[in-house]
């Protein structure tokens, strides 16, 4: 678990409110890792692949991607496809955040290689529970070394 303290959580979420709620709930769930918030899909890809304005980014340690499905410029599925299609990033665990529980969408995310799908529940208690699940997931998941 000590290793996990080093884990950088990248949150790709265009809705500032959602981002804030997720962050608050993660903190409340005892997650103290650094959270990097990116507001659109292209920026998330640039950051993860070290391209564009993030070209000069120093190699980060292990990271986890929380990816909203509906992002501007590149949507969640496109981002996922890029991440999973690149040798350097395909081992990064990805948690998809969806607004609806549409089974087809969820199936598509799993087909593209996401590790888990979490529906953003409107019910606040459910939301807390979902985030706590995420916390548990974080403590279990094997984070591959970042080279």
């Amino acid at each position, binding site marked *: 678990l000590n290793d996990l303290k080093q884990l950088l959580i990248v949150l790709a979420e265009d809705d500032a*409110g959602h981002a804030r*709620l997720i962050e608050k709930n993660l903190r409340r769930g005892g997650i103290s890792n650094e959270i990097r918030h990116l507001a659109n899909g292209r920026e998330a890809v640039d950051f993860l692949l070290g391209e564009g304005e993030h070209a000069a980014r120093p190699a980060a340690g292990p990271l986890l991607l929380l990816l909203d499905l*509906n992002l501007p410029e590149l949507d969640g599925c496109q981002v996922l496809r890029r991440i999973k299609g690149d040798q350097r990033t395909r081992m990064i665990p990805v948690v998809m955040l969806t607004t609806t529980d*549409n089974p087809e*969408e969820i199936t598509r995310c799993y087909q593209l290689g996401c590790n888990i799908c979490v529906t*953003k529940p*409107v*019910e*606040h208690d459910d939301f807390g529970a979902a985030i706590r699940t995420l916390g548990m997931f974080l403590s279990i998941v094997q984070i591959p070394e970042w080279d």
Partner: protein
Amino acid sequence: MELLDISRITTRVAAVLSVALALSFPACYFMVSYQFNSVSLAAEAESCARQVSGIISANPYLWRFEQVRLEEILVRRSVSEDPGSRRILDHKGVTVAEKGSDPGWLALTRSQGLLDAGIPAGRIEIRQSLGPLLDRTMLAALLGLVVGYLAFRVVPYREIVRAQKRLQDGHSFLNTVMESSTNAIVVLDLAGGIRMANRRSRELSGYQWQELSGRHYGFLLAGAGRERMAAALAEISGQGARTVSFEAEMVRRDAGQLALSCGIGPFHEDGVLAGFVLCAEDTTVRKRWEQQLQSAAAQLEQSNTEVKSFAYIISHDLRAPLVNIRGFSAELNGAVAELTGLFRGVAEQLEQRDRERIAQLFEQEVPEALDFINSSVLRMDRLVGSVLKLSRLGHRELKVERVPVAEMVAAILKTMSYQIELRNAQVHIGELPVLESDRIALELILGNLLDNAVKYLHPGRPGRLDIFSATDAGGTVIHVRDNGRGIAPEDQEKVFELFRRAGRQDVQGEGMGLAYVKAMVRKLHGQIGCVSEPDCGSTFSFSIPAGSMPTSAHHDKGEHDR
């Protein structure tokens, strides 16, 4: 065919008859005339002989010198005026008297012995030329020929007239067919020259018959069509094709173009290919309609896609802010709870009036506001979810399979056995069909109808449900009847609408069930309705038309594909 046979037979009969007439005329004439001549010659000879015998018996030794009297006897007019000779010979064969000229070898000869008291004293000989008779016979032959020819013409005349009339009838029938046809019909000769063009083809092309007659068809067709036509003609004359179909563009007299759908085939004369018959239909309007239909279908497809994406937008984009409202009101709730605690700690230091006001705000007004926000958000979320579900149902791909409805109803009722027992309800299942339909859709329809029937049973009396069906050629109608609280007449249409609920709102529900049911029945190409009497019960009936399910349902992608 029949016509030809009849005329052939009558022609033969007439020919035989004519020849017989032509031959029998002269033959009969000759025979009759010959007989008559020979008999009259014989009679004449006999009468002469008698007179000469009188002279002989009056003067047995010197009779041969009675030249004048004898010649007088011989000159007496004979029956015939034909040339001939008469002479009297004595018993030694010496000519005693002679009149007339020698008729030559072709003559009819009659002789009669002369007697003198019973002893032959010579003979009288009458010869008559057969020439005139033969001449008349020739005339008779000519007459026979004329009569024979006339017979040949007259005998089959009626048949020929009839055949001709039938031919004319056939022709006029064909003409009527051609002229009244709504398709253009053009007859071409082997070289492609126009031999016939019906009214419709003249209308379509805008040309008069005089302008078309004999011309090569080429000027009527646009480039590609002309080539296809030439290929079709080659196929018929070269490979013996019966009919060839193709599409072509016609160039009208006014240079306008028409789309034609053509069929062309051969016709024969005396068993030999003689030309082609072209039938063409003006498909311009149909083509235009087809295009309009296609564009309408495309528009429908587009608006369908728009509806799908609209449902997605509603469900997704409306839900995103709800997450925030709900999340942050929870945050507010937490903050207020914390503030309340803090306030309790410092409450003593505040004035009485402020303390009461703050306590009221923290403990009543703020929690009340947050409660309203929460319950509204949850309700909104449920509604959005319902719309999304409806949209998903509407676009689900149907899978046709054999569905035994009785088994399905039994399975649904089993899951509801607790509620049914609670309501003290009796369920009667009548005859139910086996349908070729979509299982999930039927399950949803029947499930909702049965659920409603149980849910809205009359609380004051034992419930009774009847599920039964009626099948005819048009399809199947399934009825679900209850003795529940019923629906007021003005509400009976409304119950199928989205979010609409009728009657007292004492039963949990979203008002979506019957909207789903209606959407599903419509998707199965059926109809649904209800007959109800308040306080007596309702019967919901839906129809599943026979053979309405396509074997391959059209594909609808999920609503995420926007």
